[in-house]
Each structure stands twice: as C-alpha cells, then as structure tokens.
C-alpha cells in the first residue's frame, strides 16, 4: 500500500452509484495490490486524473515508443505534470490485437492479466474503439518486456499511426442466425496479409478493415472503416410460413402490419388473404428489418456473399463520410475468392499510398479525385449500385459516350455468356 496517497475528492464522487466504478478499481490497485510498483504508479495516475478534474485539462503528451522491430503499436504517453506526479510519468498503452470476434477463455484472460501485472499498471480495456485490447500504463522499458512475454504465447501488437489498423468483426457465425459469411476467417485473412503494414506505419494515414456478417452492421463498418465487408445474400430470403403464422397469432395482425409490413423500405412484402408472408425478393434491399422482428420465421437465403464499401471515416478533415459501394456482391467461399478480395485490398492500398496526400484517408482521396478516377485506378468497372442516383449536373464532357456505352453492352454480353456456361 502506498504510504502517502494523493487526495482525490472529485474522483471519490465517482465511487457511488449503481454502475461499476473504474475509480474504485484503480484505488484497489493503489491500496491493495501486493506489488509496490503498482501501488505507486496507480497513485500517480489518480493524482494526475484528479488534477485534470480540478483544472478541466488533459496532461498527457505523445512521443515515440515502440518495441524492437516494429514502428507502431504503442500509444506513448509522457506526463506534462511529472514533477507533481512522478510515479506515472511514463504511462504508455500497448495495443494488442484480439482474436477475431473478441472470443476468450478465462484461462487466456488470466494469463494475459498475470503478464500485465508483472510489467504494467494492472489496467486493461476490452476493447478500444479501434478494436484493440488496450493495456494501459507501462514504462518505456516495460513495454518491451511485456510484449516479449505475450508475443511468445501468441499475441501481437495492433496498429497505431498511419498504417493498417487492427480489424474488427462481429460475433457472426459463432452465435448469430443472420450471418452470411465466415466473418472471422475474413477478418484474419485480410488483416494478417497486411501484417507488415500494421507494424510499420508508412501509409498516408490509417486504414481500417471491419467485417459485419449482415447489413445490420453491428461493427459499424460502413461508417468506421476504409474497407467494409458486409455479409449479404442474393437469392430469395427464406420464409417459414408456419413460424410466421405463430407470430401472427401471438403478436396480432395489427402489430405485424404496423411493425413489419409497412416498415419495408421498398414495399417488397405483403400479407395475403391466407395469412402468408409474401416477399417480392427482386425488390428487397436486404435491409434486415423484417428478419430482425421475426427471427424465427425469416432468414437470409442460401446464395451468400459480401458487399464491399470503401472510404468510411469520421470528421477529420473534410467531414463524415460513409463508405461507398465498390463491389455490390462477391462470393467468398473458395481460397481463390479470398485471394481476389485480398488483391483488391492491395490494389486499393497501393493506389491510395501513391495518390493520397499526407493525413488523407482513402475516402477523402476518393472525394477529392472522384469515384470514377478511383475505380479506374484500381481496375473496377462502374456499376449503378454504386450511386443513389445518376448525375444531376450537365456540366460534364461526354465525348467518350459511345465507347463507354459499348463497354457496358460488352460486359452484359460476357455476363450472359458466363451465366449460360
């Protein structure tokens, strides 16, 4: 136990109330942990945090810290008020990649906790907003020791800085009936083929892969990733009419009409006179609403695959961007399918590394140069699924029209041929 602890009157206020208190947890490390090093570093941390609460300012600054052989993966933090709180003057975070989908055994969590207690502050978060396990609070020297130890039993650092970042995937096929792809295989295939770009930041800015198994997009991939992979299907959705009728009996006709039938964004469903659930599959946009409300009756079809959207990001610098559809549908079953997805990601990252400005996300580059230039750069044909509507402005030079129209017809002929083969 630390002999002289910094007073924390404001933080103490956060120990009351029904939600678990992080302050109580940090205090336990300060007061009850057998290692004096941990008592001391958490005492300094609480002192500095109390100072922040009193002055309404943050007092951490960045720097350059990494482990041997890597350029990133650590968030360096040096205290600007180290003279007042010297115990936690170096308080770096290690970003460690979780298993795809965030699955753990208690044994593995204990092992990680034991290693962390040996080298770090004893504070950890599952997970940060980028998707990493965050081991919060290590000195520069300890980051290397901790990394060496956990790296030996299968854990590696994630991304920090201008690099390919740690990826994220939903619970997916492990426990969800809406899953349309092997989220965790895709997650690992993609990010582990860019390991060099994860560990050695040399891109214009960050680049994120996220995988959601259905259009509910529980991983927020469209808005939060440069490369969003969303599971979907292209044949008919499955309807179990018996299960539907049970819903009708228990929930009532009005509930089904008001909460399912009329909520379809493309009016693709109806209730017939014999209480059957009728779907116009050709006009269903796979929004998931009716499947979400009636999970026992409605399911994705069998012809599953993924939609790829590129360029999502948050505010800095030009404002929020959602990803844009670049591949409306792609099968992901064979090794060749996975390889072609990986090649597409390589093409995109290469093109962006060549053409992106410093600190410019992929989506911002697309905004600057236009989607068509981007598509030509990565060798992907235009598709009407990429737009909400065709152009509204007539201010465009179109003297290549005949050739472009011929390309479209040629592609359609090829698709027809391939379909009949």
């Amino acid at each position: 136990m630390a002999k002289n602890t910094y007073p924390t009157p404001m933080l103490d206020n956060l120990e009351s109330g029904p939600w678990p208190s992080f302050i109580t947890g940090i205090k336990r490390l300060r007061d009850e942990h057998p290692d004096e090093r941990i008592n001391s570093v958490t005492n300094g941390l609480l002192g500095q945090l109390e100072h922040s609460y009193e002055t309404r300012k943050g007092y951490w600054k960045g720097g350059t810290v990494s482990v041997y052989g890597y350029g990133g993966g650590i968030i360096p933090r040096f205290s600007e008020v180290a003279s007042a709180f010297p115990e936690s003057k170096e308080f770096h975070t290690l970003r460690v990649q979780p298993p795809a989908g965030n699955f753990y055994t208690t044994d593995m969590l204990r092992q990680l906790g034991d290693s962390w207690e040996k080298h770090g502050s004893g504070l950890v978060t599952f997970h940060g907003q980028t998707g990493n396990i965050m081991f919060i609070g290590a000195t520069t020297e300890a980051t290397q020791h901790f990394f060496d130890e956990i790296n030996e039993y299968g854990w590696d650092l994630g991304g920090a800085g201008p690099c390919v970042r740690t990826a994220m995937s939903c619970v997916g096929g492990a426990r969800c009936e809406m899953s349309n792809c092997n989220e965790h295989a895709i997650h690992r295939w993609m990010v582990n083929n860019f390991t060099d770009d994860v560990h050695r930041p040399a891109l214009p800015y960050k680049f994120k892969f996220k995988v959601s198994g259905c259009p509910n997009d529980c991983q927020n991939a469209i808005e939060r990733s440069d490369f969003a992979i969303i599971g979907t299907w292209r044949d008919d959705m499955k309807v179990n009419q018996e299960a539907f009728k049970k819903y009708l009996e228990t929930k009532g006709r009005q509930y089904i009409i008001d909460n399912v039938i009329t909520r379809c964004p493309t009016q693709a469903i109806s209730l017939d006179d014999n209480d059957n659930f009728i779907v116009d599959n050709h006009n269903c946009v796979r929004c998931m609403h009716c499947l979400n409300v009636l999970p026992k009756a409605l399911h994705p079809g069998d012809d599953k695959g993924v939609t790829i959207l590129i360029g999502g990001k948050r505010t800095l610098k030009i404002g929020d961007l959602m990803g844009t559809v670049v591949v409306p549908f792609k099968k992901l079953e064979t090794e060749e399918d996975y390889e072609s997805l990986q090649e597409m990601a390589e093409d995109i990252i290469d093109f962006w590394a060549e053409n992106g400005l410093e600190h410019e996300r992929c989506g911002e580059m697309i905004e600057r140069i236009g989607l068509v230039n981007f598509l030509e750069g990565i060798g992907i044909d235009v598709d009407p699924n990429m737009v909400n509507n065709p152009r509204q402005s007539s201010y465009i030079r179109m003297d290549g029209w005949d050739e472009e129209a011929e390309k479209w017809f040629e592609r359609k002929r090829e698709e027809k041929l391939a379909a009949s083969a």
Partner: protein
Amino acid sequence: MAQEMRSPIESGCPDAFQYMHPVMRKNYGQWAYHEDPQPGVLLHVSKYGDKIWTVRAGTQRILDVFTLRKLCDIGDQYGEGYIHFTIRSNIEYQVADESKVQPLIKALTDAGFVVGGTRNSVAMLSHTQGWLHCDIPGTDASGVVKSMMDEMIDEFKNWNMPNRVHMTTSCCQINCGGQGDIAINVQHTKPPKINHNLVSNVCERPSVVARCPVAAIRPALVNGKPSLEVDEKKCICCGACFPPCPPMQINDAEHSKLAIWVGGNHSNARGKPTFQKLVASGIPNNPPRWPEATAVVKKILKTYKEDAKDWERINDWIERIGWPRFFEKTGLPFTKYHIDNWRGARASLNASTHIRF
C-alpha cells in the same frame, strides 16, 4: 546495445476458434434463430437443436486486474469458462446449460456488475480515453460514462425503449466514440491559444497548416521567432491543429463545452445508415458528474420513449415526426448553429412545401 534484442513473431490477429465455446464451434454458421428470455439474456438455437445461452453484463470498461480476475472467477464457477466481449465493451458469458443462467446472473449482480444491454434497452455508452490517457482530450470519458450509466441503469436493465439506443461520447471533435443514437461530444468555442515560444521547436509547421480544414493557419514571425498564426475570423475552433502542434492549446476549462447529437445509426435496417445531427450545445463540461449533459440526454430519451413507435430508432422517429416537432417536444432551442454550412450543406435544406402544421 550490448544485449541482443529479441525479434518479434509477427503472428498478427489470433485465431478465435480456439477460444470459442464448443457449442459455438460445432454450430458455427448453423444457427436457426434466437429468443430473448429476459433482459441481458439471449438464447440461440441451432439447426441441429443445440442451444446456447448468453448472459451480458456491463462493466466499468477500464478494468483493474482484480476485476478481470473476478470476471474470470465468475466465468469458471458459474459459467463454462468462455467469454465474448461486445463492441460496446460488455462482457458476455456463454453457457450450454440453462440451469446455469440464473446463478450466473446472481453472481454477476452480487459482484456489482449490471446484467442487461440487450434488445430495446439503452446500451452501454461506447467511449474513448479522455483525461485518463488521451493526449488531446477536452473532457474525461470514463467519468462521463459512469455518471450517465448511474442515471440510466434502469434503461440498461430493462426493455423500456421503442428500439435499442446506442450512445457514445467523445472527448474532442475527431469523435473516436463514433456515431450514436445520442452522442455527447466536446465542442470547442474559442480558437487555440498559441505558445509562440514553443511552436518552431515542437511543430512541423507545414503539416499543421495543411491540417486546418478551413485554411485559417499561416506561418508567421512572432517576436522574432518562426511560429504560426490563426485567422480567428475563419477559425471554426475544431482543434485539428492541436494534435500535431500541442503549443496550439485548444482545450479550455471554461470555453470547451459539450454538444449533443442525435440520430446516428450504423444499421441498414429500414433506412440507409445515418449520421448524427446537432441538437444541443453550450453544455458546461462539469466534472465530476456532468449533471447538465445528463439532464439533456434524459430529456431526449424521455421524449423518444413517449413518442416513438416500436422499432423506431431515434433517427426513424425524428424522420417521421419532423425536426420542428423534435425541438418542440424536447424543449431544446433551435438556433442558427443548427443550419449546416459545411460542404454538401444544401442537401440538408428543405426544398419543398413538406411542412407539418
């Protein structure tokens, strides 16, 4: 260096299948449907009839090793040793034996964790690092979340809402917390205060100039030293210059405020995904409990709960009732700051006679 350094094993992202509950491994991709037996509990049934129960609980997210071990003890003693974390940092235990569900809930509750966060509840706020660990924070994150979840504990533990409510909080305008049905984010209101003695030593000036979204920063000689100056008429007080140039201090105890945004929705269900929209600002950044921000959030939640239809997320609800009625019903002021003037802003203007009376 005298001692030889160890080369890293670049193993990348670990395989998850080795850590999955055996029933999940066996039925991977073969789930038929799920039920919600009670708040915080999910039951998934596979095509082969196998069943798995999930018990979800909220934690303090910043876990100390004692708490981590407590969560593992509960998993070993009352669960089956398998754990999954949600994107909102809730812990989930999977068990194949239904009789374990109630004792597991009791053990979690007795240990001070909060079971809930499923279906149409107010989910755990997703949040960032704040004063605890970030280098540019305008406020704390864990403290704001603790304060708000204390107030919204019933909404987390029950299914009281028309649909799920995802809340987020961010300590600067970069918004690492992301989109939310309700987002509580720092909003600076004054230009950065520049320490001209430090700029040339600390900052790569051309990249700071390039970082400004409105080209308000230019190189200048101040007191005979190379520095940067800000055109304060152009400055939008976004703080983008502060990370690459810490002497351009944007955080201010008085003038860094909180703003509240609503209607962000990542899902494609019903409509396409939406960004959150500004509804309130000028809220004091008031540690340790931030009561003013919580009051606004509770007012919005109350109005949504009373007025929205089943399955409407906040964005669906506002789209149906219209923004004028949102401001009328919540009592929040509509100001000139609500009208967008950023690129693409015209698309947000009403170019029709669609007006509700």
